[in-house]
């Protein structure tokens, strides 16, 4: 066993060597501990941290009274305001209106306005757009219908029952 393997097992299984995966690994770890100062320090540190966690778990943490009071008033606050999320929505509205989002919105709007103005400047008319749209629609429908027929033929060649099924569906 080397130090990396030891530390990986230590982080995965904890400081209690009896919880490590295999008996051979446990034996190797005990032997390695005798020869490596780094391993001993790491084990000692992990044992201490586990003790801290246990102590932390045993301490009974209480939420402050003002938090408890505020939380218990939530139903009443929302009832008074037509069940809207008073606390959050109010914060969100003011922060959006007053703060940092305006520059972003303006920056995003500038290229849109410039490209719109450029389109008018180059004389793009709505009638041009309408014609090209019809052209694309024709191409799409032709490709779609063709590939659909082809797929059905290929599929039914391998699975004749599928063809029968589709006949049943049609009736």
């Amino acid at each position, binding site marked *: 066993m080397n130090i990396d393997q030891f530390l990986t097992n*230590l982080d995965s299984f904890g400081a209690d060597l009896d919880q490590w995966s295999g008996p051979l690994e446990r034996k190797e770890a005990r032997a390695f501990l005798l020869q490596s100062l780094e391993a001993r320090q790491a084990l000692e*540190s992990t044992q201490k*941290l586990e003790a801290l966690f246990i*102590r932390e778990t045993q*301490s009974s943490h209480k939420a402050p009274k003002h938090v408890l009071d*505020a*939380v218990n008033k939530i139903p009443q606050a*929302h*009832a008074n305001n037509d069940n809207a999320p008073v606390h959050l929505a109010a914060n969100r509205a003011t922060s959006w209106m007053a703060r*940092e989002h305006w520059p972003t919105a303006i920056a995003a709007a500038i290229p849109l306005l410039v490209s719109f103005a450029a389109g008018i400047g180059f004389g793009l008319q709505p009638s041009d757009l309408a014609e090209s749209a019809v052209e694309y629609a024709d191409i799409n429908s032709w490709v779609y219908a063709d590939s659909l027929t082809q797929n059905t033929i290929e599929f039914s060649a391998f699975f004749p029952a599928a063809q029968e099924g589709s006949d049943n569906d049609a009736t």
Partner: protein
Amino acid sequence: MTYLSDDQLMLKVVSHCAGSFTELVSRHVDALHAYAYRLSGSSSTADDLVQETWVKVWTHAGSYKVGKVKLSTWLHTVLHNKFIDHVRKQRKFSRSEDYADLALQAPASFEPEQQSQQQDGINEFAQLLAQVPDNQRAALLLVHRQGFSISETAEILDLSSTATQSLLARGRRAIRSADINLRRETHEH
């Protein structure tokens, strides 16, 4: 009075029963606040996160699917997502002030001598947690402090069980390195 389970109370909260909401708050608020406090390192942030979590419970109770996960798991998921939003906002607009108020108090139920030892342990624990990245700290707290299983922790953090185990192992390594560094600094001074 009949005892109602968390799920039964949540069904009543969906139809805006304030009494059921209050009962759920009394059952879960301490655990949620403890998690928020240790996660953020700030009492004021913890207060906000807990309040926002309960606002979501009241306004979106219907999004809790009874039987899918335990209510405590869902509550921690909501709080954790609020924490992620908070961290993103902090990183975007200002430097985080969290972990500034690490003067954590030992619970009043301990005797004075025991309390000072307890206080030392809690402060050391908080100091070490502060050195660990947010996601690793969350995994460590959920498993070792809040008592969730790996699969429940994975659900809360929106990760696979394997990724959660790996995160946990990295968290243990990070907190151990922090502890060794802290001891080294203490010896040098």
